């Protein structure tokens, strides 16, 4: 009986680990930090400040937070054309980096909560999956 119970508990643990619908907010931010330092840091820099007029800032960025789905779409589909960030104009191209939905959720959670940024909720991979490129034109 004890053995059965042990297997039951172990099995339950395994299931929760592997079938868990999403990471905790903290786990997602941690994973997002890795993604950020692999895919984003060259342009937006470790301090999130970017390069004025060339690469927009993520730190204290009005563009980033005023429409979260637009920001998700920017990472998911790539972003080009004129955008205005903190009253400065940017006209570059941010290529689609080929990240999957979960990776995009993670990096969003990271940049929304780093460098003094704060976001109460959590971006889920489901929300990324539901975000269409129509959000870019808003």
């Amino acid at each position, binding site marked *: 009986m004890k053995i059965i119970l042990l297997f039951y508990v172990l099995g339950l643990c395994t299931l929760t680990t592997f079938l868990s619908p999403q990471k905790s907010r903290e786990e997602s931010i941690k994973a997002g930090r890795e993604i950020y330092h*692999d*895919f984003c*840091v*060259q342009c937006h820099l*470790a301090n999130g400040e970017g390069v004025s007029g*060339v690469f927009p800032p993520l730190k204290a960025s009005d563009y980033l937070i005023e429409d979260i789905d637009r920001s998700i779409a920017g990472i998911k589909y*790539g972003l*080009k054309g004129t955008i205005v960030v903190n009253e400065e104009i940017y*006209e*570059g*191209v941010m*290529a*689609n*980096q*080929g*990240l999957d939905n979960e990776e995009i959720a993670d990096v969003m959670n990271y940049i929304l909560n780093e460098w003094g940024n704060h976001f109460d909720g959590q971006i889920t991979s489901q929300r990324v999956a539901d975000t269409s490129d129509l959000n870019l034109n808003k």
Partner: protein
Amino acid sequence: MKKNTSFLIALFFIVQLGCAQDNPPYIETSQQINYSYEVVVDGIDIPWGMAFINNNELLVTEKSGILYLVKEGQKKEISGLPSVYVRGQGGLLDVALHPNFSENNILYMTLGTNTEGDEEGGNTSLYSATLNGFELSNVTLLYKATPNSKKGQHWGSRIVFDQEGHVYFGVGDRGNRDVNPQDLSRDGGKIYRLNLDGSIPEDNPFVDETGAKKAVFSFGHRNPQGMTVHPDTGAIWENEHGPQGGDEINIIKGGVNYGWPKITYGINYSGTPITDKTSDPDMAQPFYYWVPSIGPSGMAFSSSGIYKDWKGNLFVGSLKFEYLERLVIENNKVIKREKVLDKIGRVRNVVEGPDGFLYVGVEGKGILKIVPNP
């Protein structure tokens, strides 16, 4: 405590050393501009590679995985491409024509690949294919770097040819600098040499070395994104992205170790040192290194006399500072650096067309042709 203090002092000095002075000659902005530019084709986000079929027809790769044939300012997509694995800096990279393209219509491409049945991630591959109109056939995988990686960095890659029937291409260190570039049994951080049909030349430098990748021509590279053949000497010139500081120009020779990451003039993006060594008797010094880094992309020599005073000069795109750099070389030394097309945008590539003009790929714009003022 005392130990800690001396450690801190030592660290301070190392960091000081790391923050090296700008490497001369310093970049200049020309007072007199003797050229303008025309847009050859627009609406290409990242025009990574370029190859002229003739004066009027041009192949251009879009990193996201499109190959365009451009004619009279119009671009048309070519079908039949192999599947492109787009991630980070990887995607559809360079395109180049077989030396006998006019007879056999064969072209070569480098791209990020995850072939069927592969593990997760991708790595750089070299393909050949035959171009018929707007369609590719005989698409053949000639080389695929392994193992796959989900890292976004350092795929390379340019393609060039020598006169003896070889094709050369580079693969970057794939974000695994401490493992790949110095290990001949691993791909990444290498320049490769193959016969035009993809077979391995019998006289490749490491064919007899046990465990070595036989296609390797040179090693110890970080991220080679510029390669061109010198119009007079036939030597292969390469440029590669260093870390912060320490982008390099190298003249590629078989069997040579170019040092990454054992020696470098650069430091980590975080400001910490990678190594305190900038030289080693068993490793080649760069022909030139950039401090600060310019983010060098494609490179080309101007061999035509079309531009006043530019003949024999080397041109390299700067992704970071958004200009095309002109380097004047005398007695095997860079003696002058100058900005061309200053603030034009992220320069991804430059080639000399068969008509002798310089063509520049600029992100978000397309292909520009530099025209001398009358």
